[in-house]
């Protein structure tokens, strides 16, 4: 092997991906909020009650982050970090079916990159998520052998397969 070959083989494989519509079929945040709400009738009711308010806030550009925080707060308030971790893990396991990815799909390709030792970076829009929202997405990161994460702003998070 020549030095050039060695340099090429040592080069890190970096794979960048968007989240919603690319790793997740639909809106990952919305799917998470709805799944968290389904865990309790009271939270489901609370989410239904605040949703019109959230819609109104969504109409205002600066209100979008508040609307997201409000919906997330309703479904997670009073939940311990351990229970929240387990709940989100369960949701991600069902929402991101990497193990069942169809051949030829983006997920199957990305799973292949992870198996090859690639560094996977999820780049998503949004600015400065709230601590609780960050906690929810950190579970995605922890499931790194399965998939994604979040680091706020024009966020990127990385993981190795």
């Amino acid at each position: 092997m020549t030095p050039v070959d060695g340099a090429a083989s040592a080069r890190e494989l970096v794979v960048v991906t968007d989240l919603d519509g690319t790793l997740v079929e639909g809106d990952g945040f919305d799917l998470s909020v709805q799944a968290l709400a389904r865990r309790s009738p009271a939270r489901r009711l609370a989410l239904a009650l605040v949703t019109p308010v959230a819609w109104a806030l969504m109409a205002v550009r600066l209100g979008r982050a508040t609307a997201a925080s409000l919906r997330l707060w309703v479904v997670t308030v009073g939940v311990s970090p351990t229970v929240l971790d387990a709940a989100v893990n369960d949701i991600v396991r069902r929402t991101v079916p990497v193990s069942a990815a169809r051949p030829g799909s983006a997920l199957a390709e990305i799973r292949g990159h992870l198996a090859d030792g690639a560094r996977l970076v999820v780049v998503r829009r949004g600015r400065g998520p709230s601590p609780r929202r960050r906690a929810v997405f950190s579970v995605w990161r922890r499931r790194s052998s399965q998939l994604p994460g979040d680091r706020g702003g024009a966020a990127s998070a990385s993981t190795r397969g």
Partner: protein
Amino acid sequence: MSGRRKAEATADLGDIAIAYGDSITDLPMLRCAEAPCLVAPGRLTRLLGTLVVPGVRVVADVA
């Protein structure tokens, strides 16, 4: 705006081998990659992707 911020975040990572995205806002990010991939885009996104991102490949589906 978000497309530019995504591209900036991507540029900070160095050499990007492969990138996946599904919308027009992802196109600047895809341009940073050696092997850009559009995931099941609509017709307009597919057309723009072909025009704007050299060598872009269309991946059929998410899952």
